[in-house]
């Protein structure tokens, strides 16, 4: 499986500057980069000087607006050429989105196109936010907010140019679970940016500290959850939240297999089949699930889970 990291951020946030720097850094060697630009002429491609181990493929038009299979086609074409030896045997793919892109359809494509699913794995979403203009972009453009809400990591660029106190508070409100790092002149450690998005205690704890946030719903549960209840609950979320659910992540203690947690990961009505960690990352074995969304009544997911679990437990207690 080839890991994919999505790099997003509003216009002028510094994505190209960052990529320019990354592609000269040995830590990012063996990367294929897909650049999506909004407009006819792929300027960013020309602005980037890649290293020998890295090459760049561009796609014009707004990636989030074109048919989702375009991204899949680009990825799979690269993959085919890699297999045939027509391009270097890259170890990862970086996708730079257009500044105007809503990343959700892009992530959706990565999670739903079957050939892509069989060959690629979404590793993380990194969103750049400009310290100087980021607050205005977040206020005026819903795309900028979506980019932040969907991020696993937020890179605060040009932090030396402005007082970022208010912006940091806004970012923490929009996405309390994301890791935030100041980035000066595109310098980002490869092992941080390229690492799989954290799905362990640190991430969940960081989110839980902001549980009053309206964009996030946190569910913590001491008792293990029956597998059937979890399945029905996810079905209920998909049915009734739909596109209101931007992202769902969680570690869940399944009643039938409590020795290790199941990892949940989903966007909208699309969920990854649960993956299992080898063991609990800490002594805390509570189920912890975070939903990031818009317009979700904060107690609805928990109330639904309670109701479903009650029914499942009652049914399993029936004789025969």
């Amino acid at each position: 499986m080839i890991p994919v990291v999505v790099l997003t951020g509003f216009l002028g946030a510094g994505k190209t500057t960052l990529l320019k720097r990354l592609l000269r850094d040995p830590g990012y060697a063996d990367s294929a980069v897909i650049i999506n630009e909004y407009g006819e002429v792929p300027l960013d491609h020309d602005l980037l000087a890649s290293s020998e181990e890295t090459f760049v493929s561009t796609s014009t038009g707004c990636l989030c607006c074109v048919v989702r299979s375009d991204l899949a086609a680009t990825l799979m074409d690269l993959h085919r050429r890699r297999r045939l030896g027509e391009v270097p045997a890259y170890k990862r793919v970086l996708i730079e989105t257009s500044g105007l892109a809503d990343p959700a359809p892009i992530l959706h494509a990565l999670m739903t196109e079957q050939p892509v699913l069989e060959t690629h794995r979404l590793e993380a979403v990194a969103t750049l936010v400009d310290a100087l203009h980021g607050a205005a972009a977040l206020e005026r453009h819903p795309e900028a907010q979506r980019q932040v809400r969907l991020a696993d990591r937020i890179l605060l660029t040009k932090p030396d140019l402005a007082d970022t106190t208010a912006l940091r508070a806004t970012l923490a409100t929009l996405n309390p679970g994301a890791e935030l790092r100041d980035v000066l002149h595109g310098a980002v450690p490869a092992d941080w940016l390229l690492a799989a998005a954290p799905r362990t205690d640190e991430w969940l704890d960081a989110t839980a500290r902001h549980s009053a946030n309206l964009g996030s719903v946190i569910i913590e549960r001491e008792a293990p959850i029956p597998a059937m209840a979890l399945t029905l609950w996810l079905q209920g979320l998909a049915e009734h939240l739909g596109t209101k659910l931007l992202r769902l992540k969680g570690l869940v203690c399944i009643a039938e297999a409590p020795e290790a947690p199941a990892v949940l990961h989903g966007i909208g009505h699309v969920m990854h089949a649960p993956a299992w960690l080898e063991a609990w990352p800490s002594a805390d074995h509570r189920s912890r699930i975070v939903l990031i969304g818009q317009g979700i009544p904060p107690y609805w997911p928990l109330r639904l889970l309670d109701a479903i679990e009650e029914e499942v437990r009652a049914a399993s207690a029936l004789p025969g």
Partner: protein
Amino acid sequence: MTPPELRALLADSVALWSAEARVWVDGEAVRVGEIRVTAAAPEDLPIRWWLERPGQKRPCTSVLGLLRSLRNALGGGEAQKLRVV
């Protein structure tokens, strides 16, 4: 689930669907506008919930089924199916 707990779930659901209906506890039932929701008696299993409208009484075998029926009755829009990848 007690009537107040059911009321809370249904009130949140109505808000989620952007439907317009007052939700309140009415004895052992919960009223959602003109719709009356009651828990089925144990002997009615596998029916768990009844959803009643004037001239119609609909059985539901689960809370998910109840929400689906209620959403349809309120015109809360098309639900999406879960897709696992």
